[in-house]
């Protein structure tokens, strides 16, 4: 591993398009830059394993994926320190970063921090979603990109969103079998079409349409699914579904992939006390940011999908903007590597059509606020009904509720249940998700051992704070 300094001009967290672009701009401008990433290779999820994938054929993943190769190459030659396999578990207002690499923890500081922690798939709580054989569509895509693995046996993909069609298209390119796509109903399709004019000039339109049509030609698609359930004893055996006007149907399956869009991965930013607001269009919490991604804490910026979902190209542009802002702040006299206005124009172009996607693929309420007997918290195994019962007892938000149920207190720290819990409580109380709020996240945002904590170098103040007498 690279020998790390104790202080850097800029620390970037996450090696997806935003983090790679931000770190490249900073390092090329002469700032000492470090990039921490949890994965073993750069690329984030969208360009996952772009330097190491065993897939040699462009025809499987599509040309967009390989665009990540140049971005990654530019970063690797930028002079930035790159630390893969690094879990950042703390970030303070003073920009102290706690990070673990290969079981060893350390703390360092940076003048500027750029969080590019990206997105995660929105929770999809249906009955049976914890059964082996059920995984997210994104997980399936990771297995394809990283390991050349495709589903074998009877396979169904269920849910909604552009990524669902992309993955189906990639699976077909790879020769994998898909028995059916169960497209869940949207809540706001009509509203989506009001944004269609913007989509018409979006760079995504043709690409997306072409892929969707290619998939529809080859796979049975059942649209307007309003009920969905995975069934099985020790693993998934069947998926049961119903369309708005139909009776219940059942398909025997070996693999079920679920997906209903992506949401910002907020854990590190929230634990740093960066202000977030509920986004009614994207149905998630997003950070409050200025035009360069600057957050409500001085010196900490957020770029990429962690700043609100906008896609890979927009993430790269937002990474560049955050990087350019860091350079302006720390090296006011350095010649800029790119014109900020030109990057903003590029960002605006990729933002076109987003409102359509957000509205058209808005996941239906019954898949965001499931029936009472559905498990919401996978770790502590808490149902929607139990959560609603705590509201009846007077709980006003997720933080009171978890004291009763441990919901959100398992190893995933609310990542798989947080949004569901907020929306359930908001609905039960008849208030907005903004008013209900989210889990009060605290460091460490990923579990580390006491041994790692204890082995950290201690300063005088830390020793005094625990000394007796």
């Amino acid at each position, binding site marked *: 591993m690279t020998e790390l300094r104790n202080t850097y001009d800029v620390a970037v967290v996450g090696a997806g398009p935003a983090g790679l672009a931000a770190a490249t701009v900073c390092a090329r401008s002469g700032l000492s830059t470090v990039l921490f990433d*949890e*994965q*073993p290779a750069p690329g984030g*999820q969208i360009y996952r394993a772009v330097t*190491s994938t*065993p*897939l*040699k054929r462009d025809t499987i993943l599509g040309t967009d994926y390989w665009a990540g190769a140049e971005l990654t190459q530019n970063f690797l030659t930028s002079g930035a320190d790159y630390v893969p*396999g690094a*879990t950042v578990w703390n970030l303070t207002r003073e920009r102290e970063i706690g990070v673990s690499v290969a079981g060893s923890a350390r703390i360092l500081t940076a003048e500027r921090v750029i969080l590019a922690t990206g997105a*995660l*798939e929105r929770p999809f709580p249906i009955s049976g979603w*914890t*059964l*082996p*054989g*059920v*995984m*997210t569509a*994104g*997980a399936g895509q*990771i*297995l394809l990109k*990283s*390991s*050349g*693995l*495709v*589903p*074998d*046996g009877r396979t169904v993909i269920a849910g909604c969103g552009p990524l669902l069609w992309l993955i189906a298209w990639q699976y077909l390119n*790879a*020769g994998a079998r898909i028995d059916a796509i169960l497209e869940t109903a949207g809540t706001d399709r009509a509203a989506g079409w009001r944004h269609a004019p913007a989509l018409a000039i979006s760079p995504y339109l043709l690409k997306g349409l072409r892929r969707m049509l290619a998939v529809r030609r080859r796979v049975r698609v059942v649209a307007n699914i309003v009920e969905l359930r995975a069934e099985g004893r*020790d*693993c998934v055996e069947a998926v049961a579904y119903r369309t708005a006007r139909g009776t219940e149907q059942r398909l025997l399956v*070996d*693999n079920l992939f679920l997906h209903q869009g992506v949401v910002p*991965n907020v854990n590190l930013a929230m634990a740093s006390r960066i202000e977030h607001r509920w986004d009614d269009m994207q149905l998630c919490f997003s950070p409050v940011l200025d035009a360069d991604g600057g957050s409500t804490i001085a010196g900490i910026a957020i770029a990429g999908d962690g700043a609100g979902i906008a896609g890979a190209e927009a993430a790269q542009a937002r990474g560049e903007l955050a990087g350019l802002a860091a350079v302006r702040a720390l090296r006011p006299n350095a010649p800029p590597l790119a014109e900020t206005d030109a990057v903003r124009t590029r960002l605006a172009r990729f933002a076109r059509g987003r409102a359509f996607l957000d509205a058209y693929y808005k996941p239906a309420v019954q898949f965001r606020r499931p029936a009472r007997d559905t498990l919401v918290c*996978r*770790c*502590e*195994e808490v149902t929607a009904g139990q959560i609603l019962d705590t509201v009846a007892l007077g709980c006003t938000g997720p933080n009171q509720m978890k004291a009763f149920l441990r919901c959100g207190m*398992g*190893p*995933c720290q609310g*990542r*798989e249940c947080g949004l569901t819990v907020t929306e359930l409580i908001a609905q039960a109380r008849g208030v907005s998700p903004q008013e209900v709020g989210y889990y009060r996240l605290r460091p460490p945002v*990923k*579990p580390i051992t006491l041994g790692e904590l204890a082995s950290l170098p201690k300063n005088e103040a830390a020793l005094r704070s625990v000394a007796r007498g």
Partner: protein
Amino acid sequence: MFRRLPDTNAGTVDVTIDGRSARVRAGDTVAAALISAGVLASRVADVSRAPRAPYCMMGVCFECLVTVDGVSNRQGCLVAVKPGMRIDTQHGKREVER
């Protein structure tokens, strides 16, 4: 159930999974190795003891918690396989000294 695409299995490493030897693809994560080896459940849930398997493959869901070389609660999707690695499916919560 997953299968490997042709020509994607360049090198292999030998590991043990629950004590049985297994040959897995070099470069795979522990979670991917378990999936490709046909291991259906990689852990049992803490509360209900129900079987669980990798769900997100990107470090988010913690469903792939396994014991690697005697250390439990490792996120299988974030750990690369190494020759001779001992991988054990995990049964419930982490225990002291494991």
